């Protein structure tokens, strides 16, 4: 019976061919008749007021239809609440073209609409603005005196403030046998998916809109648009079947959506707005952060005190926070803890979740501090982790539903060859290169959101699966097809997963590595109901052998339903639908986390990363020559797409450790390298051999599928593993990311 199962098999992504042949359409690529093009004008000023706008030169250019600014925009919802989206942090949501105030550099201050893109862009430079500039603050280090705890609100549920202190941290730390104290600095990073943010709005008339948008949440953006523009939910349809990466930047509606819809409604025409690469640096980003670490242990390496205090940037209008401070306690037991997370409001746009938000920043500091501690203790870094291993999440005092981190450590160490490491810094060499081995732990939440799925069995034997989720390139289409196929005993070709559409049953935005567990579980729940209905219908047939069969007495395979006790007795699903007069049999069901049961547990994925670096002994150039990451993330639905997720996130780790930084010039209050030539991410030459291991982790508690999500866990351990390897190679601890090679000379 297991023979034809697809779950657990490596299956190439089903939309791969569409993508590599260019047939897959993205938000800015839909051919729409009579389309107008909008170009966003960005503020050159960081803070102040627009005192005058003269659009006469722009309006005189043939082909220019309208220039919208705060002076002439249509009237809009004015309650902050109506601008809220599902991911809005506490505060006042930024409202584009709301009034004359400028809150940050690059803020959209006008939209030029013209018959073609080039005219709109040209005209955007022909508008005369006058500004009254005000003094601004954009530098975290210079404004630490403004640090304060974040306000609480809607989004606090997913990002709770750090837990209160336990034990007597200060005394314990002061009197500890062995301790490490250090400060880590992380700079700003921008998501930079290759697909630019874009929206194509089709004006259908009668208050109806069809919107092709770049987003991670079709329903989130549908509600946002309907609320602000006073439209009925059912009249707003948001579509995003293909998303060219997003990494968190699409969790909130971005301003091009707002401007595009506003222009379409105002002009009663179809409008497209595409941001340019520079404008991709004018909204969300990973916030810069300063982390003060104080870890202590006894002489045997048992941790006695964990102190982790974070100060991070936010905007002057919303209190964005990342889950940072308490991760160490979720990994390691310690009787005395002190965790703090404060924010500093600056004249920038609100930061936003970026792949493994909080976790990747925090784990870098935590795991580098553990490495430093291991050197003070003269205990092998891996050994130190094992000494402090715990199956119970010490922050909540709850056991994990499953935790195969030990297996991750041991399997990755074995594969990597950790035992060959001479712990002495600068002791391993290869020609002109200093060789370093480093390791680190990763941990990430295993989320599940409620989701609804409709299943529909058709007369031709095709199972249609409907859900509003997107596929941001992770392989969602493929894994959902696999899950549904297995549940109904169908081949992949007989399943059609339809998604990326707000008209479909509910899905939260695609973030936090949650969608496989969310939509996937809903499919399992709906499949159960559909099987029941199919059985019931089959039992209605004349002299049906299924008359007395209960749910447990049948199984589904190769498009047929069989009796378990006599598999030769069967009926094809097509015949059941034919008996139903060809009318599809369908069901819509909700999948949700088993809150009551899961309240007693902690839910997380884990990983262990081992990295080798080579550092040139004269000029300091660093190469990550190889890395092994072992991941424990419950059941792996598709090892191939899952491996791609881990590889991609390991490369993000290399990027975070060695390359990525958005440079803020605090005197000018703006980012100076807002393009992909100067904002460095790794190229092929930067990536060595990468190896992925999935540790066997059976989790029968977490959900119906036993899945935990793999989008982010591959990243969290990497930056620290690389930093630790660099220390091992050179004897230098660099506390600031990215590490510049010249610091190693």
């Amino acid at each position, binding site marked *: 019976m297991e023979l034809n199962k697809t779950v657990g098999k490596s299956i190439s992504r089903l939309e791969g061919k569409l993508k590599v042949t260019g047939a897959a359409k993205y938000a800015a690529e839909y051919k729409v008749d009579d389309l107008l093009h909008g170009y966003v004008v960005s503020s050159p000023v960081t803070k102040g007021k627009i005192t005058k706008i003269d659009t006469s030169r722009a309006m005189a250019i043939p082909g220019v239809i309208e220039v919208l600014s705060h002076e002439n925009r249509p009237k809009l919802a004015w309650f902050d609440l109506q601008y809220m989206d599902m991911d809005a942090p506490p505060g006042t949501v930024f409202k584009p073209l709301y009034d004359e105030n400028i809150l940050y550099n690059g803020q959209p201050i006008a939209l030029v609409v013209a018959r073609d893109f080039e005219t709109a862009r*040209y005209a955007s430079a022909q508008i005369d603005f006058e500004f009254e500039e005000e003094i601004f603050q954009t530098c975290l280090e210079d404004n630490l005196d403004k640090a304060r705890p974040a306000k609480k609100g809607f989004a606090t549920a997913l990002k709770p403030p750090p837990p209160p202190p336990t034990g007597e941290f200060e005394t314990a730390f002061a009197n500890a046998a062995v301790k490490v104290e250090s400060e880590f600095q992380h700079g700003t990073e921008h998501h930079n998916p290759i697909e630019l943010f874009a929206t194509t709005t089709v004006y259908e008339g009668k208050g109806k809109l069809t919107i092709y948008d770049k987003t991670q949440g079709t329903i989130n953006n549908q509600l946002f648009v309907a609320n602000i523009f006073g439209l009925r939910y059912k009249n707003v349809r948001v579509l995003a079947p293909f998303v060219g990466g997003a990494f968190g930047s699409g969790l909130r509606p971005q301003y091009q959506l707002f401007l595009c819809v506003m222009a379409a409604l105002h002009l009663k025409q179809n409008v497209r707005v595409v941001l340019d690469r520079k404008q991709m640096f004018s909204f969300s980003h990973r916030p810069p952060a300063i982390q003060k670490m104080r870890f202590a242990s006894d002489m045997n390496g048992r941790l006695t005190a964990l102190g982790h205090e974070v100060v991070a940037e936010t905007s002057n209008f919303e209190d964005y926070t990342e889950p940072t401070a308490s991760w160490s306690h979720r990994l390691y037991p310690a009787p005395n803890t002190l965790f703090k997370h404060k924010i500093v409001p600056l004249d920038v746009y609100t930061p936003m979740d970026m792949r493994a938000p909080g976790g990747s920043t925090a784990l870098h500091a935590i795991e580098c501090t553990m490495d430093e501690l291991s050197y003070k203790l003269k205990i092998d870094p891996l050994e130190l982790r094992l000494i402090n291993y715990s199956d119970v999440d010490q922050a909540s005092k709850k056991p994990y539903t499953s935790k195969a981190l030990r297996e991750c450590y041991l399997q990755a160490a074995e594969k990597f060859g950790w035992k060959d490491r001479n712990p002495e810094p600068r002791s391993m060499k290869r*020609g002109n290169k200093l060789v370093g081995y480093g390791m680190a732990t990763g941990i990430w939440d295993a989320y599940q959101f409620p989701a609804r799925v409709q299943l529909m069995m058709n007369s031709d034997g095709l199972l249609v699966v409907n859900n509003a989720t997107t596929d941001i390139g992770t392989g969602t289409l493929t894994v959902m097809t696999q899950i549904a196929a297995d549940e109904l005993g169908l081949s992949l070709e007989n399943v059609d997963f339809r998604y990326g559409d707000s008209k479909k049953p509910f899905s939260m935005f695609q973030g936090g590595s949650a969608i496989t567990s969310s939509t996937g579980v809903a499919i399992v729940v709906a499949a159960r109901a559909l099987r029941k209905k199919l059985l019931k219908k089959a039992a209605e047939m004349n002299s049906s052998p299924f008359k007395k069969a209960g749910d447990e007495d049948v199984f589904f395979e190769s498009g047929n339903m069989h009796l378990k006790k006599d598999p030769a007795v069967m009926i094809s699903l097509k015949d059941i639908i034919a008996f139903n007069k060809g009318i599809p049999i369908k069901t819509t069901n909700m999948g949700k986390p088993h809150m009551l049961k899961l309240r007693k547990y902690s839910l997380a994925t884990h990983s262990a990363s081992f990295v080798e670096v080579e550092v040139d002994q004269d000029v300091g150039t660093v190469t990550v020559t190889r890395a092994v990451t072992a991941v424990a993330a419950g059941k792996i639905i598709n090892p191939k797409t899952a491996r791609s997720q881990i590889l991609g996130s390991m490369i993000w780790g290399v990027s975070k450790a060695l390359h990525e930084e958005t440079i803020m010039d605090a005197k000018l209050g703006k980012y*100076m390298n807002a393009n992909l030539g100067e904002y460095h991410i790794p190229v092929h030459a930067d990536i060595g051999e990468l190896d992925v291991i999935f540790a066997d982790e059976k989790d029968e508690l977490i959900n119906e599928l036993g899945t935990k999500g793999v989008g982010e866990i591959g990243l969290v351990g990497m930056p620290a593993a690389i930093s630790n390897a660099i220390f091992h190679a050179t004897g230098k601890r660099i506390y600031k990311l990215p590490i510049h*090679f010249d610091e190693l000379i």
Partner: protein
Amino acid sequence: MNNFGYKQAEDTREAISLIEHNETAKFVAGGTNLIDLWKYNIANPSQLIDINHLAELSEIKTLEHGGLRLGAGVKNADTAYHPVVEHQYPLLSKAILAGASAQIRNMASNGGNLLQRTRCYYFYDAEVPCNKRIPGSGCPAKDGYNRIHAILGTSEHCIAVFPSDMCVALAALDAVVNITGPTGNRSIAFADFHRLPDNRPDLDNNLKKDELITSIDLPEKGFAANYAYLKLRDRHSYAFALVSVATALELKGNTIEDVKIALGGVAHKPWRSTEAEEFLKGKAANAENFSIAADLILQGAKGFGYNEFKIKLAKKAIIRNGLMALNPESQLPGAQPSA
């Protein structure tokens, strides 16, 4: 980006007459730099004169008295992979291939490479002051984020770097730039082609507005036995040099008979020091002597905060590259330091 006229020039004469009569016209070759500048509102030509089809610019040929002529219109990639260049001028080939990406090198022309503008962040942002863009407006780079900026030959008006890799090799090889213009033809020694910023940072080089580069001549001596190009940057490919070094040696045994060392990423032009090269002549090719030469090359080097590291890095790079030139095969691909 403004509206503009476009014309394909039939021959160099037409190209010159078109540009002579239009103050705001521009030649376009590969367009890899010009179009970027245009999109950022830094260049705003009213007329494009396409020189891609000019036969006079499109050849690589050996010169009668020895040496090689590189047409200004020949693509960077075609130049780097040309058999004579690979064989006789491998330093040039290596330097070109260390630049940009394969796609960009396929488009970029030799003439355009000489005329590419600085990558200074502040120059590239039309909304902020920059003496190179708007003379007299100021230089925020001096006390801004200047990791990529110059340490040699700077002026109070400008600390921008000339970013080319190809030109570092051309400087080391003592190339000559051939030019045509309304008043006829002329040639400029490579060392005199690019300028230091002084009080006219708006001028990158000594080419006049209405002149066209037709070709670049390489002298016969190509230093094919002992050479190395080292490029140090923030990622292993597709990034501009923070420091690069082209070293060309002529050896007798281990004694240096002739030597050229040019630095990229440190100044407003490829940087050479006659004093250092004179010092090395007749000396043993070893780390000690390269170190003394490095100090001579870096005399007067001055950092501006974030780029302070370049002084130390350049010294290390000069020494290492000198040693790599003794054994060119030791170098790893991508102009990286040897294994």
